[in-house]
């Protein structure tokens, strides 16, 4: 088969400074991208304003420019280096927005530079929420009722048809910045004003709130020949209403039947078609009603994202590396999967373990910020851990947070709270929600209750000692004290194990194919007795930036 012409010289845009909503995951993807392009024999030119990144190490790209990621300086670099192509999909929304500017001001055309990996149309469509909604509706894909407004007056009119509560989503902002959920009229007006200011185009989407729906993400990849694979499905422990970056997430998705999962898979492909993503990685987010399975498409990112970094680590499928290669025109079936060495990249990863990501917050460093989670991201980092079960992965991740907690045992202030106090605390999503939930007893949460966390609560329930609970079984009530005080009321890391069978000793590598081909990446999902490994070695502490980017 004919090989596509590989461009001689390619420019990659970085993501710039590290901030909330845009962190080292783009350094990780940038490094992978540069390496992949070098493998293909390209001369790589890199622009990133952040010198404290691995991708700007002198040995990586052929030329690295530490220059502001603004039109004038990037134009100057492009004029000087004259690359054949530009890949903007590895540097987050910053790089995508810059690519749109470069295209619209005619710089790319003037210098004869080809935009690879994403078209300006698909970038605009994915970010402009109104256009995105229209494209989805035309393609017959479900979206939530919403209206884009450009002024407070318009917003108030829109509210009459949509009704409270609503979610406000400013266009073209990072990490949902400037948005939020409004439950009453005054907070709606205040949030809307704030959002209109935050959006560079002064547009805010006023959307029906589906608080409590389950949230799923699919990390997908497509090549120029139309091959489409789902790299990883991710289920959010936190329901809709909490930003994905602030959510505890679980891969692979756990609470979908195969038929439901395939509906989402087909829809993800439909979204890519409708947005016009011809090649590369993308991330599609869905809301699913836990009571009846109705679903809606929330958004899609036509680029490598925070979730892609997690999906890459979780599955061993290097999304950024492969995205860079398919952007050059390579096909998925001719790129080999580095993990197995024997299967092509068109082989969808199959996991026989669970990965749990927990965001890390640092509210103590931001005195003005309220420790309340909403649609704007507040986490400063994250940890991910692998386990043979959800429970194992969750507990490993908790340990890796380095917040002096080993388990789901309640911290003292929580243990001292009474029923009403707990109920009040649980009503607000905070970084403590996992422990609050543990304290009320997950066996008191049903899938009919608003949070969509029931599946995981079931897992937690298995893991803990179930205790008889007092009060109305339909409501959240505190369990009665344990009948025997000599028995620890909750379990700690070492004591919380289920009966553990004698290991046959296989859990020693990440495998993209559930062990059905030989794997080689030494990141052990197992923590069984006899083969216990340190949690530090298996957890991926992405808040340790350089380590994450180098691996």
């Amino acid at each position, binding site marked *: 088969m004919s090989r596509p012409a590989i461009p001689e010289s390619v420019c990659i845009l970085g993501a710039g400074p590290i901030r909330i909503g845009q962190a080292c995951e783009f350094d990780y993807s940038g490094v992978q991208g540069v390496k992949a392009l070098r493998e293909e024999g390209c001369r790589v030119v890199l622009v990133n304003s952040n010198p404290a990144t691995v991708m700007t190490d002198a040995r990586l790209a052929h030329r690295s420019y530490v220059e502001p990621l603004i039109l004038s300086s990037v134009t100057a670099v492009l004029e000087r280096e004259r690359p054949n192509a530009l890949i903007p999909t590895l540097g987050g929304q910053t790089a995508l927005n810059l690519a749109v500017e470069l295209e619209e001001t005619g710089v790319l055309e003037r210098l004869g530079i080809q935009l690879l990996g994403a078209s300006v149309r698909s970038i605009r469509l994915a970010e402009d929420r109104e256009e995105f909604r229209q494209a989805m509706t035309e393609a017959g894909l479900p979206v939530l009722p919403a209206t884009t407004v450009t002024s407070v007056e318009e917003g108030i009119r829109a509210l009459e048809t949509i009704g409270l509560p609503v979610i406000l989503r400013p266009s073209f902002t990072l990490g949902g910045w400037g948005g939020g959920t409004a439950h009453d009229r005054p907070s709606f007006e205040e949030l809307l004003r704030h959002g209109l200011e935050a959006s560079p185009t002064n547009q805010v989407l006023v959307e029906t709130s589906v608080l409590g729906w389950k949230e799923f993400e699919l990390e997908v990849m497509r090549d120029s*020949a*139309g*091959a489409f*694979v*789902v790299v990883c*499905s991710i289920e959010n422990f936190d329901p809709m209403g909490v930003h994905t970056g602030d959510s505890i997430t679980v891969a*692979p998705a*756990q*609470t*979908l*039947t*195969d*038929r439901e*999962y*395939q509906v989402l*898979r*087909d829809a993800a492909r439909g979204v890519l078609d409708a947005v016009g993503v011809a090649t590369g990685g993308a991330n599609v987010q869905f809301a699913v009603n836990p*009571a*009846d*399975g*109705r679903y809606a498409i929330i958004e899609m990112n036509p680029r490598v994202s925070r979730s892609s970094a997690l999906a890459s680590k979780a599955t061993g499928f290097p999304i950024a590396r492969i995205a860079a290669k398919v952007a050059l025109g390579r096909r*998925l*079936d001719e790129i080999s999967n580095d993990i197995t060495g*024997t299967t092509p990249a*068109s*082989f*969808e*990863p*199959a*996991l*026989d373990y*669970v990965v749990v990501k927990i965001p890390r917050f640092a509210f103590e460093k931001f005195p003005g910020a309220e420790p309340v989670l909403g649609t704007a991201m507040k986490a400063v980092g994250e940890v991910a851990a692998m386990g*043979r*079960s959800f429970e194992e992965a969750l507990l490993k991740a908790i340990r890796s947070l380095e917040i002096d907690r080993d388990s789901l045992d309640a911290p003292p202030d929580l243990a001292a709270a009474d029923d009403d106090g707990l109920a009040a605390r649980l009503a607000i999503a905070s970084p403590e929600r996992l422990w609050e939930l543990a304290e009320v007893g997950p066996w008191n949460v049903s*899938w009919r209750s608003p949070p969509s966390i029931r*599946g995981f609560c*079931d*897992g937690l*329930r*298995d893991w803990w*000692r179930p*205790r008889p609970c007092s009060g109305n079984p339909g409501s959240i009530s505190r369990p009665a004290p344990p009948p025997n005080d000599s*028995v620890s009321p909750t379990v700690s890391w*070492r*004591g919380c*194990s*289920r*009966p*553990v*069978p*004698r*290991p*046959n*000793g*296989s*859990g020693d590598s990440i495998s993209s*194919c*559930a*062990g*059905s081909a030989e794997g080689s990446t030494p990141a052990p999902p197992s923590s069984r007795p006899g083969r216990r490994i340190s949690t530090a070695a298996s957890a991926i502490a992405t808040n340790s930036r350089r380590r994450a980017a180098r691996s």
Partner: protein
Amino acid sequence: MLPYADGMTNTRYLPRQFNSPRPAHLVLTDGTVFFGFAAGASSTIDGEVVFNTSMTGYQEMLTDPSYHGQILCLTTSHVGQVGINALDAESDRVWARALVVQDLDLEPSSWRSEEDTSDWLARIGVAVGWGFDVRAIVRHIRTAGAVPGVLATDGTAVDALVERARAARGTDGCDLAREVACGEAYAWDRGPWRSPSHPETDESGDDRPPVAVIDFGVKRSILRRLVAEGLRVRVLPPSVTAREVLADGHTGVVLSNGPGDPAAVAGAQDLIDGLIGKVPILGICLGCQLLGLTLGGRTVKLPYGHHGGNHPVRELASSRVLVTSQNHNYAVEESSLPREVEVTHINLTDGTLEGLALPRAGVEAVQFHPEAAPGPNDAVGLFTRFAERCRGTRS
């Protein structure tokens, strides 16, 4: 009681099956022993040990007649978390002899669930081994090949199991299709589950082109897909003759999936021989292997088969890559086929044959499962093409 590592587990308050768990053992014919815990029925079961790497769809797999005679090991971390519902069943019973999983969840977390998985398995009497190191089993099968084995959930001594495992036989030379197929013909008129707003369609009408499905162990999803394409579906037992199929005015014939060794399915080749060239034919999985044999080819047993929902296949005519659902231990040998048989699909992982066609006779067959369930819907277009051929709107 089993010894627990470090004496770390207090089982006193553990629910049901965790409370004084019963041990379970899986012993392979080569003497390898795997340890776990027992749930479901209490018995000693032998069968061919196979694994499936799909991350969803345990109910579909358990009820798939292709798993008849097999001990099914699922590699996914959790099984049972979405419960059991009537629509996802691929037949009216569980065909896998036994189930081996890493973890069996107690309570479902799905609005579609009608029954807890562990209750259901216990009620219908399926032996389950949980807490097994399934990756170790997969690795063993990968190197040693699909092997017969014995699962004991009733506390049978390991020594006795090793004896029994040595005598256990695989599926080579077994005509299992006859054991799972329907005894009498029946009509099927229910369409696929699409989404909550379109749960299941009930289609009937006499103006639809009638097609016959020869049941070697058919999955209901195949029937549902055919109904969705606007065909009138009649399922026939494998003992039917070509003359009877043609006499009923069927405009097309589907050769279904099914269990076991294709070379051992009695009478199938005569039946297929009588149909080739008379009506459009679609073969799926076992149906594809039977077509390959009838057309003069040979089937071989793969080292450990293809069992999962993630196998990339190239459709040679369009050069498209399809991610497919697969479940087969045998494959048609490409080199054994006569020249006039076209190879239409190739597995991108190991290059084995995944589809064949005899264009002059309107014969098309695929080794994978275009009806998915569980797995991606990438290849459902095959049913559309078949329906067009049945209507005569496509050659």
